[in-house]
């Protein structure tokens, strides 16, 4: 049976297109996964930083209500203080 050239050309085009689709899809999945991973880590860091900041605020408030040397010393070691700035 003779194949017409048009059919052959179309089949070749279809094969090329299918292979390219696979390559692009694989790349897309790989890059999306990397991007999502980075975004997840950054979100985690931001959430943890925000939580630590809130915890620090709570500790500073606590030190204002219950002043004692230990907590002041602790806060100072982390660069935090509840004392007003010197004039």
């Amino acid at each position: 049976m003779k194949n017409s050239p048009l059919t052959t050309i179309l089949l070749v085009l279809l094969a090329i297109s299918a292979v390219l689709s696979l390559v692009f899809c694989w790349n897309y999945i790989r890059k999306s996964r990397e991007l999502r991973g980075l975004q997840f880590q950054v979100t985690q860091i931001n959430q943890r930083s925000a939580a630590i900041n809130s915890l620090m605020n709570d500790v500073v408030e606590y030190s204002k209500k219950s002043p004692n040397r230990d907590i002041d010393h602790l806060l100072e070691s982390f660069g935090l203080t509840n004392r007003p700035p010197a004039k």
Partner: protein
Amino acid sequence: MDEIENKPFSTPALDSPDLREEIESLRHLLGSILILLVVVSGTLTIFLLREMKNTSAQLEAFRPGATNMIAVYQKQQAPAMDDFINKMKQYGQTHKDFDPILFKWGLKTTSPTLPGAPAASVPPPSNAVPKK
């Protein structure tokens, strides 16, 4: 009878015009389907190419900042945060009035030893500091 046996019904003559017409019709149909498939597949390929380029651009824009941020966090911030949390826990062991804060942030889970401590009823927030 012999004639019927020699020429079965299921084998039409190869040069019959009806058969040729049918073959031509099938060839046209195959060509049409292939063209349609090439168009659909090409559209999908172009769509995937654009998506891949978009994602790649987003990743290239996001990666340097994120990598730097993660490195700084792992080297400096995380140890400092852990140190702060540990110090708070140690402080809480000797100062029972600090328990409400520890309970609030999920740094202490056992029930308070002091009776009537108000913090025992404070649930830990959903964004409590993640533990390592």
